[in-house]
């Protein structure tokens, strides 16, 4: 899978995750999402901001935690980021690839 990212070019690892999550910009999120066939809405951004906030707090993320976030339930989460919701949303949010099995 190839992700076409517009300017500015940010450093990513071989899987396309941002190397430094502090580099993240909204435009970068929009471009990465578009590369995965997703047009970001306000709801998407609410989830993305929540994910980034948890990253700041050092919380290891799971689908279950997202489901309890009060922003989306698990069904909506799968609808917003079809395919692999936790991985895809993490990539778009510029945070590292999740390592959880749940």
């Amino acid at each position: 899978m190839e992700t076409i990212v517009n300017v500015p070019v940010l450093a990513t690892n071989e899987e396309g995750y941002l190397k430094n999550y502090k580099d993240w910009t909204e435009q970068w999120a929009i471009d990465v999402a578009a590369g995965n066939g997703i047009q970001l809405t306000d709801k998407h951004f609410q989830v993305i901001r929540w994910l980034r906030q948890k990253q700041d707090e050092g919380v290891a993320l799971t689908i279950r935690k997202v489901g309890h976030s009060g922003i989306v339930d698990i069904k909506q989460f799968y609808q917003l980021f079809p395919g692999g919701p936790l991985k895809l949303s993490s990539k778009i949010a510029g945070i590292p690839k999740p390592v959880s099995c749940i």
Partner: protein
Amino acid sequence: MIEIIETQETAAVPVTVKRESKPLKKILLICSKGTLEDVYAALVMTNGALMEGIEAKMFFTFFGLQAITKRGADNLHTATVGNPAFMPNMPTVVAGLPGFEAFASYMMKKEMDKLDIPPVTEFVQMIDAAGGEIYACKLAAEMFHLKKEDFLPEVKDIITVGDMYALADGDGSQIIFV
């Protein structure tokens, strides 16, 4: 995706053998056991598949049925007797004392909660919300006198073995038995 797996040099003209790598598209998980660890293994693998965008279905049979009943789902136990990997130094006589299994199961659930592993009913809800489908075995349900209303609301149907195999149709499908 095409990857080159080998080049045959024995032939007069080198022949490149190409094989298409086929990603896993669908899994059918059969859960035949009702102990805490077996049921969780099945649930974690199913949920993990859905998280990767793999279509997933579950079929519960025999004692596994217990895991999807309203009464049994959150009351599963781990076996403390006849389970050599569980506290290897624990004498069987002690492990078999009344209440020991309940205590061990309680401790295990507590540890799982720390890892954000949900109780069975919530796990089943998560799988259902993620598009996973859950079925009960007709023969086993009849054997244990269980009806549709005895099962969790997420259980889609009570089906035969033949119907179960139909769930695993199509390219890139695998069946996993627990």
